[in-house]
């Protein structure tokens, strides 16, 4: 394509202020993985506190909670909880799934030289970076970090300390998501290689497209809500403060007439589509890996595409199923129950199509495939346990119990996160030219799989028994919880095993990076376009020559062909 930039780029031009989508994707990937690790660290401290409440936290307790002699106070627990949720969702999983995988793979899978707007792409990463810095800096302010939960419900969030930094950071993160997802949409629509028609797009591209639309349309109302909450905190307005409010024994001196429910509506209008932002890229990654490792076409490709498009549309009209307990009325509840039941249909279509894809395949059980396979039952458990929460009658009992925590963690942790691990193992050879070590990969997978279930399965038991979430002592002071709190220790040990299980993964990356590069650009024998580029793809142009596409994304085991796969680019 273009050979006209022979000038040498400096280190900073090449790796820091780069506008190359591959470098930006890796920047996103490293930053978000570090945030995931940090979010896990917060959780580990919380889990220790839940299992052994009000004891001195070993090793780091003296340093973290110096004022209380190493014991975690309730307000510390609240801060850790709020920041764990915020960091995992907004700084960890979404930037990894959309920022890293989307940025790196979308241009490659559609045969494009780069994203449509390379500078905007870099701006999106650096806005995310600033948002992350502000969020981290909030730990070191005199007020401390936010402690009103990741949902930041007013009126509490208006009075609690640390919230201002949280809101400012969210404005940056939302802006970054908007820039990034806008870029992905334009890239997919405009930069598809000649011959790559809509139904020849790999399924992963479809999931990125729907995800980007969700981000573009769902995030702005939260930005609006964040601005309103900032006004409440800084300018003394009372958008979310009702009249006659008493806080800490004193009447609140605000005009009043506001509504805490308004925040909940604006917040969940984002936060429900956000759930699908977390899960859709994961579904896309799993789809790619299943087709590749069963050596079969993805079953029901078109119904999958229709299902996720419908899912994306429906996700905008289910938000109030998070609010059954607020007394918004029978009619509203009935409507949102109905839409919630309807939205479970496309999810089931996806899972069913994936299971049927396995049928009759000669499955290769490599590490990416193991993670992708375990995604199916884990996401299944997460999804099915969501149904009782979507019906108001059972939700009123289960709301705000550990059952809810178990439900969404099954979707996001062993669900999405496993899919993202699968993606890292699968595309690592493309990114670096080296395959991650299989044995260490399995050493990563099996303990992680067991530990994940060890952490989250008992949450269903605790939740069904009525144990409330967000209690800093894990429910020790509640008599009705006394016969299920013993699970806390089991879950905490599982969490620490999960932490240890990540060591082989981290070591694997560094050890593999020090090995010799392989010349094989398609080690998994895959059909999609990114595997026809060199590994790693050429800076700024990706492919050696213009890409032309001749066939669909999953032509595996085509009869009358010697090789068992037919690359999209081969005539």
């Amino acid at each position, binding site marked *: 394509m273009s050979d006209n*930039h022979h000038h040498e780029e400096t280190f900073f031009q090449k790796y820091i202020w780069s506008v190359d989508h591959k470098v930006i994707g890796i920047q996103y990937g490293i930053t978000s993985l570090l945030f995931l690790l940090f979010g896990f660290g917060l959780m580990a401290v919380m889990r220790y506190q839940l299992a052994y409440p009000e004891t001195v936290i070993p090793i780091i307790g003296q340093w973290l909670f110096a004022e209380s002699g190493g014991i975690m106070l309730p307000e510390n627990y609240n801060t850790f909880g709020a920041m764990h949720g915020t960091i995992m969702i907004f700084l960890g999983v979404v930037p990894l799934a959309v920022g890293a995988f989307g940025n790196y793979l979308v241009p490659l899978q559609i045969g494009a030289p780069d994203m449509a*707007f390379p500078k905007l792409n870099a701006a999106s990463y650096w806005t995310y970076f600033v948002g992350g810095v502000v969020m981290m800096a909030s730990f070191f302010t005199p007020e401390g970090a936010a402690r009103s939960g990741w949902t930041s419900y007013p009126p509490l969030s208006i009075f609690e300390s640390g919230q201002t930094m949280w809101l400012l950071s969210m404005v940056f993160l939302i802006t970054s998501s908007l820039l990034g997802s806008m870029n992905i949409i334009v890239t997919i629509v*405009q930069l598809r290689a000649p011959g790559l028609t809509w139904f020849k797009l790999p399924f992963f591209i479809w999931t990125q497209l729907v995800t980007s639309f969700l981000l573009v349309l769902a995030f*702005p*109302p939260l930005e609006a809500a964040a601005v*309103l909450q900032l006004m409440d905190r800084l300018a003394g307005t*009372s958008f979310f403060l009702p009249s006659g409010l008493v806080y800490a024994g004193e009447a609140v001196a605000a005009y009043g*007439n506001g*509504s805490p429910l*308004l925040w909940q509506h604006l917040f969940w209008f984002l936060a429900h589509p956000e759930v699908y932002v977390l899960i859709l890229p994961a579904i896309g990654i799993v789809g790619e890996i299943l087709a590749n490792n069963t050596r079969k076409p993805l079953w029901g490709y078109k119904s999958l595409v229709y299902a996720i498009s419908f899912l994306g549309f429906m996700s905008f009209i289910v938000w109030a199923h998070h609010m059954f307990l607020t007394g918004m009325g029978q009619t509203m509840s009935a409507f949102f129950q109905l839409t919630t039941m309807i939205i479970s249909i496309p999810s089931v279509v996806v899972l069913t199509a994936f299971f049927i894809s396995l049928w009759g395949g000669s499955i290769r059980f490599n590490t990416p495939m193991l993670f992708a396979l375990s995604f199916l039952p884990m996401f299944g458990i997460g999804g099915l346990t969501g149904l009782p929460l979507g019906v108001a009658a059972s939700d009123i009992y289960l709301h705000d119990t550990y059952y809810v925590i178990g439900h969404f963690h099954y979707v996001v942790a062993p669900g999405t996160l496993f899919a993202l691990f699968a993606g890292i193992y699968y595309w690592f050879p493309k990114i670096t030219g080296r395959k991650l070590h299989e044995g260490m990969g399995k050493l990563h997978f099996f303990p992680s799989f067991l530990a994940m279930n060890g952490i989250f399965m008992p949450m269903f038991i605790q939740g069904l028994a009525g144990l409330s979430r967000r209690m800093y002592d894990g429910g020790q002071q509640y008599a009705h919880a006394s016969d299920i709190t013993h699970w806390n220790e089991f879950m905490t040990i599982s969490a620490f095993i999960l932490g240890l299980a990540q060591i082989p993964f981290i070591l694997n990356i560094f050890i593999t990076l020090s090995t010799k590069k392989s010349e094989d650009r398609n080690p998994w024998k895959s059909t999609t376009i990114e595997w026809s580029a060199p590994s790693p793809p050429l800076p700024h142009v990706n492919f050696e020559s213009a890409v032309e596409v001749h066939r669909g994304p999953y032509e595996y085991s085509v009869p009358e062909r010697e090789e068992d796969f037919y690359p999209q680019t081969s005539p």
Partner: protein
Amino acid sequence: MSSIPYIVEERPDTGLNNSKLGVWIFLASEVMLFGGLFSAYVFLRLAAPEGDFDYWGAKLNVPMATFNTMLLITSSVTMVMSWASLKLKQFDKYKMYLGITILCALGFLCVKYFEYTGKFHHGIYPSSSTFMGIYFTLTGLHVLHIIGGLVVLIYLWTRQADKMWEENPDLLANRIEVTGLYWHFVDLVWIFLFPILYLL
């Protein structure tokens, strides 16, 4: 990097160039941003005690806002004229019309400044009432959008534009078209703000 296709020319099967599609998607997200705030306005107005919004709404300066509406509509018209001039290869006219657009925007900001300070002099702040809160939030965010647009307009009026005109006139026309779409949107937001805040 320079090999990215469809920066200015249209992709045959979509009939769009990259920046035009990009700005439309950006505007869709802007609709959702202001949509969220407009719904908040409706929600708060319905929940407010009888007459509360009317009482506070009467304190706003309708003639000033009407003048501002005229300024913005004029600026939208001249924005289109500046783009049309470029298409007709009349660079001097382009500069004149874009100059008028910039002056209108600056005029809008001046009027807004006097409106805001007038309120502050009378001791009216966002915290004074729910109406004033949503008034300052909505118009403040709108003013930020005007300022953002103004920065781009001024950039496209400076010598950078002369340079671009010589090197790549199509690119300049494309930039002006895209900026114009944004500018019309900001204008349109005001067309909604004016009645719901000043007149209703």
